[in-house]
């Protein structure tokens, strides 16, 4: 009897100590949940967390106007691509375009539909410094490469002659988890710095030369806010909501720009006018040309199979994307996302016609 009681206590202890695994349990539980509820919904999708708030709003509004229910699980871009490849969801979503290898592994040709534009802001913590700091692309890259280590480095003071820059170490803070935000930021650094391109490179996670890792936008923000002398990067929406100081960057045209939704849209417009009519939209828009362009901007994509087995689902998905690109775009700014420029919407509508399903003429 005593033994039984102690064995039961042992089980309890095991149950308690399992608490640390909540995170992974959540990630694993998400697809199961999606499957469990799929009976009640018309379409299921999974993927990127960055656009999840606007997608949630879209799906809610769309269900309200048309009655079509769409279930979306923000499990991360990598998970979205995996689930689309395995065919467990009707559409995926990703902050980075699928690589050629990922395209080859999928069950058919995957079309990329840019939905909204996100911008990444550079934020910092310099006590007493009120005005916005200015960085050129090469200075920013060298800070994150660990080549510039002091705030009063001659190259920073030259750009910010009026700022009171202390003789303290620069602490770089980056994301510790794989993320689309990191992809956009490293994509930008790779495009402006050969040393970065040939060193850490671009990806959802890279081998950072210096610095600390914070988990999520909130982890990076917390770290930067608390540590005098820290510099990091977060989603623009996150920087705005938390009133973080953001740096001005020099764009290709030589103008100093603060991160803004207009700057992000301008960035996409600059790229869109040069896109071929038959583009697959797997393009990077960082560092685009244009006077008002904020250079650290990127699309986030919906991923859809070109040939869909279910005519019913395909029609609903096409209708939804049409709605999202027109009616949906008008409400993205309320959630701090930048809307697509009009010329992008036209290009995407052409690609949408490529979606085929049984019975389509």
């Amino acid at each position, binding site marked *: 009897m*005593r*033994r039984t009681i*102690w*064995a039961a*206590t*042992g089980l309890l*202890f095991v149950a*308690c*100590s399992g*608490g*640390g*695994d*909540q*995170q*992974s349990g959540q*990630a694993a539980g998400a697809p199961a949940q999606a499957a469990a509820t799929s009976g009640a919904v018309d379409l299921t999708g999974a993927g990127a967390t960055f656009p999840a708030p606007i997608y949630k709003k879209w799906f809610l509004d769309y269900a309200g106007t048309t009655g079509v229910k769409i279930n979306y699980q923000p*499990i*991360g*871009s*990598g*998970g979205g*691509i*995996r689930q689309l490849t395995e065919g467990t969801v009707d559409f995926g979503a990703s902050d980075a375009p699928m*690589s050629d*290898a*990922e395209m080859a592994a999928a069950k058919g040709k995957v079309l990329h539909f840019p939905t909204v534009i996100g911008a990444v802001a550079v934020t910092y913590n310099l006590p007493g410094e009120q005005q916005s700091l200015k960085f050129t692309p090469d200075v920013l890259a060298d800070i994150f490469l660990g080549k510039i280590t002091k705030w009063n480095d001659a190259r920073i003071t030259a750009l910010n002659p009026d700022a009171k820059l202390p003789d303290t*170490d620069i*602490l770089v803070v980056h994301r*510790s*988890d*794989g*993320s*689309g935000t990191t992809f956009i930021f490293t994509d930008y650094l790779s495009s402006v710095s050969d040393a970065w391109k040939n060193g*850490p*490179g*671009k*990806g*959802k*996670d*890279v*081998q*950072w030369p210096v*610095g*600390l*890792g*914070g*988990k999520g936008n909130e*982890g990076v923000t*917390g*770290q930067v806010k*608390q*540590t005098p002398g820290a510099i990091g990067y977060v989603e623009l929406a996150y920087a705005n909501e938390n009133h973080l100081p953001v740096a001005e960057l020099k764009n290709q045209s030589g103008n100093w720009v603060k991160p803004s939704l207009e700057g992000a849209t301008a960035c996409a417009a600059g790229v869109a006018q040069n896109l071929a009519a038959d583009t697959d939209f797997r393009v990077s828009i960082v560092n685009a040309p244009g006077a008002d362009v904020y250079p650290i901007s990127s699309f986030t994509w919906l991923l859809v199979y070109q040939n869909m087995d279910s005519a019913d689902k395909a029609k609903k998905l096409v209708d939804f994307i049409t709605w999202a690109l027109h009616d949906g775009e008008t409400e993205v700014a309320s959630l701090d996302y930048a809307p697509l420029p009009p010329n992008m919407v036209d290009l995407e509508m052409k690609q949408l016609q490529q979606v085929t399903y049984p019975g389509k003429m």
Partner: protein
Amino acid sequence: MVDEVRAGASGEAENTPTEPPRAGIAIHGGGAGDRIYSVVITVFALAVPALLLLIFAVVTNAAWPALKTFGFGFLTSSDWDPVNDVYGAAPALYGTLVSSFLALIIATPLALGVAIFLSEFAPPWLRRPVAFLVDLLAAIPSVVYGLWGIFVLIPILRSYVMPFLRDTLHLGATPFFSGPAYGPSMLAAGVILAIMILPYISAVSREVLMAVPRSQREAALALGATRWEMLWGAAIPFARSGIAGGVILGLGRALGETMAVTMVIGNRQEIAASLLAPGYTMASLIANQFTEATSDLNLSALMAVGFVLFVVTLIVNAGARWLVWRTSREAGI
């Protein structure tokens, strides 16, 4: 594990060779109910080891591509480069071991102090509420510990503790406390873990100390021992293997802790001797990267980290069990 602890503490089960009466099997003709009961509990009992083996098999299978690609170098390389698909788990392995042992070094004396106070010195009206509050530490979700770590612990460590250790005590002259103090560090992870495992060690130690037979204490006191001598000469040796069991339980928890550690350790893929420098642990590496890992080798490398964590936990637990077994045998109880 707790079962073992208890057995060691009472000091009877391991020494008395008599088997406990095995009701379900020994009694013949006990009716269908007994037979069903014995089958059901046997299945339950076997299900747990079977589950363990299954998990091990699945993790090993998924980890195989990475283990095959990187071989033994996986354990010694500090590279973690998803862009070029090159992976090594050395910093995470090092960080897991160092942060856990640091936690043990901090938590064990504290927890023992709490347990001894509660079982030997505390007046009865104080014993229950204090024991309850200490046990309550185990009920706090780890993410809450992490938040507390970011907003309370790290600023204190950065502003007071780290400068004190490094400059006032001149420990900065040793490699273990040198370098800049940013806050998120191996030390912060060790302290957070120490607080998290303290209730486990203290709860088990308290129970085993209270289980020391009254006759044992009375015999010591009758020989003229002071209270202190009675405690160290009679009670603690008797409870030694049980206390060690509690420490193992705490260590197991520390090795696998994920969320709180991720939030305070700094997540840097680098082996640094200094406890003030940031590090990484295997559990936080998996938690950080699993959702966005896209390439097959990246996923496999994360599973390989899980495999290494699994093996390390097994080795540490087996080693600690052996230690308990040896000390209890040497003590002759």
